[in-house]
């Protein structure tokens, strides 16, 4: 059964690897032949082939997989921890490998019927005089060849190279632009060196807030979201901890629900939440703070409940043995163990929220980010420079402070 699974998964993995290699080759060709930087929609396309050509491609893929599987452990076989050996346990001879390659076509043609009927050793392996065996553990006396002389090592290298090459082209890495367009970046450097602090205290006529007002808004958005988020995540974290909540079916359902909530909400970008709340609650800092709050509850909830799951069970046992009830056990054996970590995580979250408080302004979340994006869109770089400098200064001070507090706590 185990070998059957290994065979099937190894085949699938190898198929995926070769398909990926083929596709990246195609993408590279396409990108260099039909380069169109202005239409990102067309950066990756399906090859437009006739059905006939598709058939050739598919057969070619299959052949490539069978060939790599016959000659040395392929990447799929390596990952599943199996390799081919001859009857006597030695690496198979060339003839045996060729025979295996030939006979495995039959196995593929019957959709692996032989592997299902005889999972230990299907027909094509018997005819070729080879066997599929688990790889010896790395510490055993059998010396393995170095990776660059094996099929799986070379395939992995090829995959890595293809990934880098495609990534390089796809993300339009163009180092020349770094040099040629350096003059364009001068504007922003000038802005940073000669910032224009005219709106530092005086309100900007369009936004009606000064930079300091915006900064205070951002700071308090982050503060409100962090404090309220921590308070809300605290009780939820116990419901989301397997060792506290999941003790009977109802508890297990609560546990699963809580964890699901954490995972879904956490992986949705804060900006998305900010856009929702900007419509719901109207543009402004309240929408931004609510978005930060929602994301904070989920992110902290997950971190917190993991902490609860990793506590030392000893004190729990000891406090239970004194005759305490569940609430008392949580209060005296669980909470003291996790509280310092909770605080550390909350402070860490505060650092993140402060930065995200700027980004939520992109969709109407309020705060100093609003100045930043407005000035950037107007290409008023010296004002942008002022915002960036002010914000950086704040972030430094806050990072220093929070790092110091975290050190004191833990």
């Amino acid at each position, binding site marked *: 059964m185990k070998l059957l699974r290994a065979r099937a998964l190894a085949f699938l993995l190898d198929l995926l690897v070769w398909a990926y290699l083929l596709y990246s080759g195609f993408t590279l060709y396409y990108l260099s032949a039909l380069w169109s930087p202005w239409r*990102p929609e067309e950066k990756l396309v399906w090859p437009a082939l006739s059905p006939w050509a598709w058939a050739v491609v598919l057969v070619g893929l299959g052949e490539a997989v069978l060939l790599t599987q016959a000659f040395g452990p392929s990447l799929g076989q390596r990952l599943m921890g199996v390799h081919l050996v001859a009857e006597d346990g030695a690496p198979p001879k060339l003839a045996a490998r060729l025979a295996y390659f030939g006979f495995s076509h039959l196995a593929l043609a019957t959709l692996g019927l032989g592997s299902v009927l005889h999972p230990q050793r299907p027909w094509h392996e018997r005819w070729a005089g080879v066997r599929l065996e688990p790889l010896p553990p790395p510490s055993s006396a059998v010396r393995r060849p170095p990776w660059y002389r094996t099929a799986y090592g070379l395939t992995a290298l090829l995959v890595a190279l293809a990934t880098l090459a495609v990534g390089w082209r796809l*993300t339009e890495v163009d180092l020349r632009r770094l040099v040629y367009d350096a003059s364009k970046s001068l504007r922003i450097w000038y802005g940073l060196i000669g910032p224009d602090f005219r709106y530092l205290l005086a309100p900007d006529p369009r936004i009606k807030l000064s930079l300091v007002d915006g900064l205070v808004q951002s700071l*308090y958005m982050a503060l409100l979201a962090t404090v309220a988020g921590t308070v809300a995540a605290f009780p939820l974290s116990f419901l989301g901890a397997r060792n506290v909540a999941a003790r009977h079916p109802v508890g297990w359902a609560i546990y699963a629900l809580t964890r699901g909530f954490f995972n879904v909400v956490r992986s949705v970008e804060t900006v998305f939440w900010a856009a929702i709340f900007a419509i719901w609650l109207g543009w402004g800092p309240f929408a931004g703070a609510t978005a930060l709050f929602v994301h904070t509850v989920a992110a902290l909830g997950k971190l917190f409940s993991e902490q609860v799951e990793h506590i030392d069970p000893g004190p729990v046992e000891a406090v239970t043995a004194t005759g305490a009830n569940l609430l008392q056990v949580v209060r005296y054996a669980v909470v003291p163990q996790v509280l310092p970590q909770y605080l550390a995580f909350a402070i860490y979250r505060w650092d993140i929220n402060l930065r995200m408080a700027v980004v939520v302004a*992109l969709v109407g979340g309020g705060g100093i980010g609003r100045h930043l994006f407005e000035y950037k869109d107007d290409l008023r770089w010296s004002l942008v420079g002022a915002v960036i400098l002010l914000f950086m200064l704040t972030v430094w001070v806050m990072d220093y402070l929070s790092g110091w507090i975290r050190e004191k706590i833990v």
Partner: protein
Amino acid sequence: MKRFWAKIRAGVWAGAAALRRRATALWEAGRGFLRAYGWPPLRRAAEFLLAWLKALRIRVLPPLLDLVFLGYLWLATSIAVSFAATGRVAYTLLSWEWFVLVVGVTGALWSAWDQTLGLKVVRHRLSPASPGMRLLYALFWPLFPLTLVTALVDREGRSPAEWFTDLRLVEAGEARPRRWYRSPTGWLAVLGLGVSLAAAVAVTRVDLRAFVTRFEKTLKFWRAIFSPAWDQAGLGLKLLVETLFMAVVATAFAVPVAAALSFLAARNLMRGPLPRLLYTVLRVTGSFTRSIDAIIWAIIFAVWVGTGSFAGVLALFVHSVVDLMKLYAEQIEAIDPGPVEAITATGANRLQVLRYGVIPQIINPFISFTLYRWDINVRMATVVGLVGGGGIGFRLAWYLGAYAFSEATMLTLLIVLMVWSIDWLSARIREKLA
């Protein structure tokens, strides 16, 4: 050609050696001078300076911290109260004289009657005394900046307030901690938190009724969220792949750079004056660069090379290099010196020591840090994209700005799927490594 390069190399080595010799000679000369003439008077001067600094740390720093805290309390109270009263935010309610007076008096009384926050930080407290004496202490407390002078004269480095009273600042031992509701510091701390929250509620214009009254505005949105624009799936998938590749490329090119730099940024490998200088320069530049947020880097690069995924890659790259350099270097600093010593004892040269004594110890942490950073980069790639770094984030910001919620939901769905699979994948790989 070969001889040409050999010559160049020899020249460079000779130059480096000469520089090194010169620096070492200077260093040695300085130490020799100190050893021969400087020690006793210099030591005495240093001791005096240290005692003075210690006195200032206990007598000047805490009051300053307390004043900053009280000033903040005033500010936050003003914000909260002014908003509650007038609906507008004001930073000071009364004139500046009042501010100075209130903060000063509170600070003096607080310092005389309890272990203030500042004193907690430096782990000192006041010795017990009668209320009258405490009042006297409070009266002289505002003179605390004069400690700069008195600490020079006084042997114990006392502040003026201590001079005129019999109260002393002593080290706080393992005394019984007082309940927070029984000490002024506790009240002030709670007040600080409460006022901060009140100010936060005021500044962010919290209006919980809006959740209900404005609900119908979101109906369009709820409809959209349950009908994602499936026709965007193809485009979204392409952008997703692009985003993924942004993270891959940034991480892949950051790793060799960071690994090379990390050896130069490891304190235990950089011995001697010149290497130490290099170490300091690298560490300082690193922490400076790291503290500039990736979002700001993205804005800078979006202007530099134009909006697009290249800008995003550059922003992620810069941030990854400095972050990984720090993580790697810390790992190198934490290695077991035993093997290094053993390899050195066999007569191996520096590079051999690195290869056989250091690298085997750090290879696994390096890989797990790299995975961790890749994990972060995948998430950051979308955020960086929002501000002009290309990829799926840029499109998402665009749709959100245009209230195209079905499309935005589709992209968000894809991002969620990507984040989950990456989470799962890197957890599996790290499990295998551990």
